[in-house]
């Protein structure tokens, strides 16, 4: 009888221990989530009110950071000087007035030029206009502005520092390459860039983020930022 009682108490004790560990983990995960929410990137009020629509595209694939480096015509470290809402947002439409393409012109202050075409006038400590082709602002049917993004892209933020890979586009402008793989926040202020902000997780593709983290590590050894 005593034996049964002892083993029952032992089983009950182990069960309660497992139960408390499980509950502890659950609460720990919840508080981690709350921490992330608190750390969300600061954006302007107008940006916060903007509805974001994310659509999927088919991108040419790049398999290594070395390939990303080699394919870029221009590589700079730079900081956007305007808030996203204050930038120039362009859209093009087809013959029947359907939205065909969108992009954002982002003015940046160049802090370092890593690779450039011989005759391109891009200099350190001067501003340069680049294109973020995977994000734009368009109007929906009711005339309300919406932010539209392709795949996992998030716009570069004012006064934050980025390593940016660019190629000349159809309009002769320098455009960020390969969606989110073409820009890396290097001062770790932009929590959206590697998907650590809850606000952008809904449209981040997990596989893109894994690739981006690998590329960032590889780029740190190639470029040394």
């Amino acid at each position: 009888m005593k034996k049964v009682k002892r083993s029952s108490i032992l089983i009950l004790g182990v069960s309660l221990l497992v139960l408390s560990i499980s509950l502890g983990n659950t609460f720990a995960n919840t508080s981690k989530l709350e921490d992330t929410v608190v750390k969300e990137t600061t954006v302007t009020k107008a940006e916060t009110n903007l509805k974001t629509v994310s659509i999927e595209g088919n991108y040419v694939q790049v398999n290594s950071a070395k390939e990303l480096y080699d394919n870029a015509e221009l590589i700079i470290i730079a900081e956007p000087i305007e808030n996203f809402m204050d930038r120039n947002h362009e859209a093009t439409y087809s013959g029947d007035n359907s939205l065909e393409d969108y992009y954002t012109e982002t003015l940046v202050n160049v802090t370092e030029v890593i690779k450039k075409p011989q005759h391109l006038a891009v200099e350190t400590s001067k501003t340069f206009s680049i294109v973020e082709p995977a994000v734009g602002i368009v109007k929906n049917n009711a005339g309300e502005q919406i932010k539209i993004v392709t795949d996992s892209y998030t716009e570069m933020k004012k006064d934050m520092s980025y390593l940016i890979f660019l190629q000349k586009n159809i309009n002769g402008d320098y455009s960020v390459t390969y969606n989110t793989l073409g820009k890396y926040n290097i001062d770790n202020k932009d929590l959206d860039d590697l998907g650590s902000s809850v606000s952008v997780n809904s449209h981040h593709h997990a596989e893109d983020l894994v690739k981006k983290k690998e590329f960032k590590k590889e780029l740190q050894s190639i470029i040394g930022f």
Partner: protein
Amino acid sequence: MKNKLIKFFMVLSLILVSMQLLPTTSHADYHSNSRSFYGVKYDSSIYTTFTYSGVTYNYWDAYEAARKQWDGKAGLSLAKGSHAWADTYYVGSTSDPNLLGKVFPVNGSQDFVGMDQQWLYVKVYIYNNVMSSYNMSYNQRYSNATHEIGHTVKMKHPASYTGTSVMKQGIQSIGASTWDYQQLNLKWN
């Protein structure tokens, strides 16, 4: 009574441990929610031509072959028509130097919506300037059109599948694979 209480705690513990160990989200390779189907129409831009290895092709042929990859599969109809809410296929150009195509889903209020929402129709674009800059062949452009039309039936870029799929991103020369059709059936049947 005591035994029942012990059993209750043991079962509860097992459930909670399982919740911790098992992944909390599953990764289906198709988008959630549904959509309406009012057929497909072609914009005049699909008569754009391109030249590869000295031979001239037009996008009408590529789109037509791509549409047939999905039409009638899993009980879905992508038949050609002229309804105001039919999906429309376009050939365009983009400021993005590495983007081959994308889709714009629209809801019942005629507003753009995300991939996991309810759709009324979809506008499909493949980008001639980028495909030409990569000197893509007819088969590669057809494959790109098949990929984009795959999105119109809610197919997603595969998260971790390593086999053959037209829904993988990048330049390919294939149509929809057996696996793609399996995903389509999982989504719609």
